């Protein structure tokens, strides 16, 4: 049951071969809603001090948790709460380990990965279907976010490592090994975050994927079946680990 709900922004970032990003201002108490089936790279800045940025490490350590979900906060380096996750319909984990890819990263991955049909071991991100050097996207997330954030004069090296929404990363707590474990869901999931301060927010997506974005005003957020996120689902049936992973049978 919404009261005085207004949709201030409602758009879909269409798929493109080089990925894409958008940036926009958010006012305290507004809701940012991200919808998709694949990684949405999310960063945020204190609108009144653009040096104060979303910080992966503070977000992990202040909550002693690597996988944010409904009920989690996103923190700045100064331990200030930027956003609260109020809705999460994604059935797996979101990621706070990986950083911003660049063209350079994609070239390194292409050289390391080998042909497309050999990339099932989780060592490279899903959807790396490039067969030829010419097919490597011209830009990674960092270039796309930098272009989107240019009006605020934020240079690429000032963009923090992101909150990787819908990126299910496996982590072995004993060996420390990480692997990409994308579930390829049939249906879109939604993460909604409430701004706890005035922000500049930027969202990026990878090549060939699409992301929906909304900026909403009004309270309370809608109750959605399954919106309680991965934490409430508890120890869900573990996904079959990719071939070659340390957990494969």
């Amino acid at each position, binding site marked *: 049951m919404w009261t005085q709900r207004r949709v201030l922004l409602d758009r879909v970032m269409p798929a493109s071969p080089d990925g894409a990003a958008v940036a926009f201002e958010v006012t305290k108490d507004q809701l940012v809603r991200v919808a998709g089936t694949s990684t949405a790279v999310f960063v945020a800045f204190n609108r009144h001090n653009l*040096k104060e940025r979303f*910080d992966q*490490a503070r977000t992990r350590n202040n909550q002693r948790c690597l996988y944010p979900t409904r009920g989690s906060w996103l923190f700045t380096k100064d331990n200030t709460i930027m956003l609260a996750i109020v809705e999460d319909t994604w059935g797996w984990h979101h990621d706070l380990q990986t950083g911003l890819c660049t063209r350079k990263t994609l070239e390194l991955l292409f050289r390391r990965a080998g042909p497309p049909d050999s990339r099932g071991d989780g060592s490279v991100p899903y959807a790396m279907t490039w067969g030829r050097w010419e097919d490597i996207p011209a830009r990674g997330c960092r270039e796309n976010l930098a272009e989107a954030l240019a009006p605020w004069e934020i240079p690429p090296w000032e963009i923090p*490592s992101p909150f990787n929404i819908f990126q299910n990363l496996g982590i072995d*707590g004993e060996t420390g090994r990480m692997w990409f474990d994308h579930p390829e869901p049939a249906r879109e999931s939604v993460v909604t975050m409430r701004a706890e301060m005035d922000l500049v927010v930027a969202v990026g997506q990878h090549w060939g994927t699409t992301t929906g974005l909304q900026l909403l005003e009004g309270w309370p957020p809608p109750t959605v079946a399954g919106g309680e996120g991965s934490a409430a689902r508890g120890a869900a049936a573990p996904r079959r680990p990719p071939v070659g992973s340390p957990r494969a049978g």
Partner: protein
Amino acid sequence: MASRRRLVLEDEVPFLLGRAWELGKGQSIRVIARHTVDFVAFNLHDLNERLDQARTKTNQMKVFLTAGDVVYSNEDNVLLTIVEDAWPWHHDMQKGMCSRKRHETKFQGLTKNNTWGREGSPSPWRRWEDVPPRGCWENLAHAVEPWHISPWDVPNPLNLFQNMRIDGQTGQLWADDKGPGAGEADVFVEMRAEMDLLVAGANDLDGTASFRIEVYED
């Protein structure tokens, strides 16, 4: 090779302080401690290029580093190679830097301090007066200030000798720094600079001893 190796610099950093040193490409720094040292690095010729936890983990697809691994920058360049690691447990790249504000929120129970072997989220201090006046963030920022680096631009460190326990299924994280023998004797990590660097280290709060560094040149 051992006979050509020269010690070119030594330093000792007291508890609750940080310090910075310039390294030339090819020099090695040995960090000798018995408690956590928060360690950061910058490209000496472009201080916007700095140690990056996320790129270091992503480019090697691992969350724990040891001998043979490298430390990456935010530009995907290798800053350092870990050449020797005498710490029998894990180093950390999940945590950031502690600070006065983090101490206060921990004391108040507003942020978590889950510690393996202890219930809940215990505060390390019983009284407000015992909360330390600063943390690694202030200490590292002060150490690199002569190079005009903003405190906001001190990167999340390589937290040497800080063993954290991770549950990969639930994502839960605990401090776990009481392994057998931990804190009783010096251990070390040695890293080789793969470019000219500014490096800095600060003592974390899990002990009161100072730490030492030695810089070697072949």
